[in-house]
């Protein structure tokens, strides 16, 4: 867990979320670990395993919407009377995700404790998965994420709308035939899913916002990958954009993605 949290040092305020929150969390974790072991001994192994599989199932179903799953919800709906051994249940569930499903449980918001599932396996080329309604959304999303990264990790909302307009996606008025209400998709759905952050700029009239990468984006893709995408689209060498290239390489070597 601590390793995956360290890698959250991506663009966006996951960086800003102060270290003391992290420390506090690990502190409470170490404090309770001996207690957890003691509590664990009191439970039958069957009961514990049952809770673990319940948690795995709960997270798989919850992940369908891609909205980070709050720890409070997990405790309320699944863990219930087993709160005293929650860290152990979570650890075992994560083992199952890694060994059985090739997924990984990652904490995206150490402050409010919410979790997401990310794939541990490299994406397959032409995996033959059937096209679902999310496929075009991922295209839209990667464009916005690319734009943010290439423009120095933060862009004004007007820049994004202008970009989409160039791609024949109007953000106001008529509904787009694939995306429906584009503005809602970008500023609400992607934001709730933590792919994007949409922050209101203070003292602007008319209102202005800026976009940054959300904490899920930082977990699901790296700067190096986004640069590769841009390079592929523009048929150029990633080194064309020297500063972005250096930043991506620094991230790749510095924080050591799993």
């Amino acid at each position: 867990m601590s390793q995956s949290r360290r890698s959250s040092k991506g663009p966006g305020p996951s960086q800003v979320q102060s270290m003391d929150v992290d420390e506090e969390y690990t502190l409470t974790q170490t404090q309770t670990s001996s207690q957890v072991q003691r509590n664990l001994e009191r439970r039958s192994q069957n009961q514990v395993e049952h809770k673990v599989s319940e948690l795995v199932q709960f997270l798989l179903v919850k992940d369908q919407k891609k909205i980070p799953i709050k720890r409070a919800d997990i405790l309320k709906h699944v863990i219930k009377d087993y709160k005293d051994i929650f860290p152990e249940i979570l650890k075992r569930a994560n083992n199952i995700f890694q060994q059985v499903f090739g997924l990984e449980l990652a904490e995206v918001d150490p402050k409010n404790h919410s979790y997401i599932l990310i794939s541990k396996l490299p994406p397959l080329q032409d995996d033959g998965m059937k096209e679902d309604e999310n496929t075009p959304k991922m295209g839209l999303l990667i464009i916005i994420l690319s734009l943010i990264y290439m423009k120095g990790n933060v862009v004004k909302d007007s820049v994004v709308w202008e970009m989409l307009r160039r791609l024949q996606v109007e953000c106001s008025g008529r509904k787009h035939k694939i995306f429906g209400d584009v503005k809602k998709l970008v500023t609400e759905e992607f934001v709730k899913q933590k792919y994007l952050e949409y922050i209101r700029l203070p003292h602007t009239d008319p209102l202005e916002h800026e976009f940054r990468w959300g904490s899920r984006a930082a977990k699901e893709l790296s700067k190096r990958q986004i640069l590769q995408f841009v390079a592929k689209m523009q048929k150029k060498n990633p080194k064309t954009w020297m500063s972005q290239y250096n930043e991506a390489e620094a991230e790749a070597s510095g924080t050591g993605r799993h």
Partner: protein
Amino acid sequence: MAEGKRRRRPTEDMGKESSERKSEEGRERRTCIGQESNETTRRLIRQQYRQLIASCQQNRDLMLSNRGDKLTEALEDADKLFAGVSEPREAALDAQFLVLATNLGKEKANQLQSDMAEFDSIAFAEDLLTYMGINRLEREDSDSDEDQNTSGFLPNNAWYKLGEEAKKYFRRAPVFHFMLGTFTADPPVEKPRIERQRKKAGPQEETAMPAQLKKMEESHQEATEKEVERILGLLQAYHQEDPNTPISYLEFVTDPRSFARTVENMFYVSFLIRDGLAGVKLDPDKLPIIEPLNPEGEENDQDSLLRKQAVISMNYEEWQKIVETFEISAPMIPPTTGTQSDAEQS
């Protein structure tokens, strides 16, 4: 950088001028002659500053664009205005504008950094469109009247194609699917909505139902009341026919053809007695007689009189004996419906 220099250069030149003017205007004010016009020019300057600031804020994107030199132009305008500034109030506005211009300058500098890295979002957009398989020949035609830049020229699968490519870059966990596909997690949320809509749609049905129920209850209650009233009417009629002969209670209630009717009659008559509309007494032979009472006259007495309760029992044999003894051939209270008594007969 360039803006900064330009900004400073004219001010140095203007500085002398404005200080000269300042002393000149000061002298004017002391003489109290041009004070009014001075006030007007000051107001004009303030208004111009505010306009400049507002236009900078509104055209932020234009100011930041690489084409044209709007920021420099704005700074030059401000310098011209500053020449006429003599009082702190106008100078404060100048300072306010300078803060804004500095921020814009900073943003431009940031832009410069990525501009150096040559990321051109317009070119990126074009390349994306190419990747998605846009038909440019047709698009060029529509470009002439720019606004009609509709999505008709992108093939239908354009966004799917890009989406498929995009998926390769995400470590997105594949979502859990139900095998037959139709089962999603959403419907439970939608169900109550449908119910609410239905309720709104059919208020008529709702009102129709209780109305029907009410009627049924009423008719049931009414049946008893009507029967009690009918029996009271009969009793009063018999009494009026021959006020001096007391009516035998047993003869009055007994229906020789039906034990059930007899018991029913006794039940209805008990209401008359309870409500003080009829009284039961014993005649010299110790047999019960019934007579109607005047409810108005009795009312006062009823309150003063102690309530008495009596139970009359009757079983099938007793009924048969009564019919024989009193030689009752026809009921004094005829049944309301023939069918009912017929059924009792058999």
